[in-house]
């Protein structure tokens, strides 16, 4: 749905360092994780396409509901876990290459 950002390209004379300190490195990976969350969510939520609730006699709708909401809770929990670190990154202005 989104185009990859071109922010990793040249950046004039203020070229960012290639290797980062441990804390900055973790933060970069947190940003990556936050960007990956929608992809993970979409992948998990598209699995129901493989179901055929109308064609089978099995009791599959109630587990389906439980599955949908379980994915939902996992996404919320992951986003909440990431939010604190990312807030600090925002506060420190470490948001280059968005």
């Amino acid at each position, binding site marked *: *749905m989104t185009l990859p950002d071109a922010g990793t390209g040249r950046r004039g*004379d203020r070229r960012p360092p290639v290797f980062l300190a441990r804390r900055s490195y973790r933060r970069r990976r947190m940003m990556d994780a936050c960007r990956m969350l929608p992809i993970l*969510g979409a992948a998990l939520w598209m699995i*129901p396409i493989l179901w055929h609730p109308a064609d089978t006699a099995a009791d599959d709708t109630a587990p389906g*509901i439980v599955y949908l909401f379980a994915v*939902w809770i996992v996404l919320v929990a992951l986003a909440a876990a990431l939010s604190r670190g990312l*807030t600090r990154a925002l506060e420190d202005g470490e948001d280059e290459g*968005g």
Partner: protein
Amino acid sequence: MVPFDLLVAGCIAYVILLFAVAFVAERRARSGRGGWLRSPWVYTLSLSVYCTAWTFYGAVGFAARSGLEFATIYMGPTLIMVGWWWILRKLVRIGRTQRVTSIADLISSRYGKSNLLGVIVTLLAVVGTAPYIALQLQSVTLSFGVFAAASPQGWALPDQGVTAIWVAAGLALFTILFGTRNLDANERHHGVVIAIALEAVVKLVALFGVGAFVVWGVAGGVGDVLAKIEASPIADWPLQPGRWIGLTFLSAAALLTLPRMFQVLVVENADERHLATAGWAFPLYLLAMSLFVVPIAVVGLERMPAGSNPDLFVLTLPLSEGNGGLAILAFLGGFSSATSMVIVAAIALATMVSNHIVTPLWLSLRAGGARAAGDVRGLVLTARRLSIGVVLALGYGYYSLSGGSEALAAIGLIAFVGLAQILPAMLGGIFWRGATRVGAGAGLVTGFALWLYTLFLPSFGSSGLISAEVLVEGPFGWGWLRPQALFGIEGIDPLMHAMIWSLALNTAAFLIGSLLSFPEPLERMQGAAFVHVFDQSRGTRGWSRGGAEPEGLLVMAQGILGGEEAQRFFQAAAVEQGKAGFLPDTTPDFIDRLERRLAGAVGSATAHAMIAQFAEGAAVSVQDLMAVASEAQQIKEYSAQLEAKSEELARTARQLREVNDKLTDLSVQKDAFLSQISHELRTPMTSIRAFSEILMEPDLPEPMRAKYAEIIHEEAIRLTRLLDDLLDLSVLENRKAQLTVQVANLHDLIERAITSASSTRPDRDFTFHRDLPTEHMAVYTDTDRLVQVFINLVSNARKYCDAEHPELTIRVRRAGARVEVDFVDNGSGIPKKSQSIIFEKFSRLTDTSRAGGAGLGLAICREIMANLGGTIEYLPGQGGAAFRVSLPVRRGLTRAA
């Protein structure tokens, strides 16, 4: 059964509560005590305008018809929100740096501040949103109907139209009251936001209440509900993969492109960090909103008589189970969903209509264009208020035309598809520098047209604008152009068909148009500013040269931002450049900042056009852009730095020169003063000496002796007064003045000053303009000294105002803990070169010194104000000589700046 009167009373009480909450929030924000109004939780709750009445009531109906498919409407937004780092953060940052006022403004600003694109997006938004508002009105009248009718099914109220009118009028009133308080998009609508946050809580509590009642009150707990789900018709819901993916995508797009969502997500965002909280809290809210949807649908299908409307189960289920209180709560939840959506949508649309259609039209119709713009602020605010009325009237009109038909229920998704047409231009705009105005325009028009043809018009049914014949056989019998089977591809769900074709061709037109066209310099610059918004080192200014006339710019800015605001902005810029007064140098940087400031009020396109009138020929050119981007950038950057430095030096040199001139002037003045003062002292001295010599004559007749003694006395008084003034000034300058601080009404002080000053040139007929109610304000200061300042200003105006019919306007304004009193006359004012010396001692602009006094008046005023902890300044650009006296309401609370 709930008495209908009780429901109406509860509803009215709820509305009054909303008004009160909005009012209190607005008051608190104004007095600076509204820190909690900017909390991330309020922001998260305000995002709930996504959940309209269509989702509040309709989700259950959706689930009853299509099973779990209803969840896709919430899944899309969840995916966008949890990945906020990707798109939302960029949008919010762009919104803040470019002072974006609406989604139309975003598109217009990105593509070279093109107003045409703004107009297209505005039209798309109005066409897509009016039916959506109609849907909200319908849901409120329907839910009223449930209570009014004897049986839950009989909602055919005779006065449905009347209800809808009342609801629409009330919403218009609320929106106009709290949504058009200020012009600038970056000043938030605290009242509206807090009311919506409250409504968000009510919605959630209501749906949770009904859900808990259904699961544990009607059914026998979670296990029983799950069993019932398997037993119900919902268990065999047909999962269509196309719709599953398509609807998730569509709702994700809607979160970004719906005007109301853009308003709360981007425009009303106070702090980027709020996104981090909203990124997980809003998905949690959506989860909570959809948790009980299926249980309510299942139990409703089981319990309610066959044929009852599943869209209203949230209301009818508690009613039929005899829980009236819960039903009222559910009603208020639905009411909240409907009203919050309408309020925010109306604000967003009104901003677009006023900024992109009304204001540009008005400016182009006026002779003189932006140069003689006058009170644009008043115009835009009026336009916004009228637009709110028009938007709601359109919604109501659509509602009454469609008569609450079935077609209306589908409009939610239809509107989603319509507004999703903005998506390619939007995402392309913030991630791809190559996107151009031509491409965006082509994409938008293509998508808009296809959406109208394949989805919107057919949604009116065969009796509507597209006849059944065209639907079946295509226009002119061309089968491949059938609205719901383009190019002969049949058998797709109409919604998916429209979505795929419109978005695919939209994107194709956007890409091809962008690849083939060549953008203008401004467009390329904006493109870079948007795509690289996080990389501030790339900043390019939109103006290559300064040199616009600052006074004209100030007059125009005053017309848009309001006098006070504009003066503060100009003053701050002047201070930053190391200048005193209100007129900064118009450097490109200053013009750029001013433009962005104005863009926050009237949109980027209009702001750019207005500034361009003053800075002709200074707009950025291809060469300027190349200069930034070329291979020899470093050298050029170096030379640019040198240039900037030499500019800085030139500025400093000029400031030094100014100071030097001032010193020279002062020295000349001092010499002049010494001779003046000697002269002033000598004249009375000479006459005193002469007359006292005469008095020494022994045989002087008595009457003559008395007359000469009187002359000597008068001259002595004049001498004393002059010496008193000098003494007074030196005491004030050394800050040793004794102040008698007391409380007084400002109005009385002004009155006293006007009366006292009336003896100055009493022959002139002088008109005063005053706003009496604002003058009544208690001040705690040395009142005699303050009146002395006022008398001086009024008598100066009486002396020097050279208009044929002299007038003096006195304006009083409270600014925080300070009071500002402006004295503005209608004369020719004070020339710019003299503005800096009028407060110096012994300065007199004219040689016509017959007015008396030695030029000490304003100097004394300045020292008095400094002693009172205030200031007195000359105010340029007011159409005459204007002075602003500013002092703390309570002396001692704030010191002079």
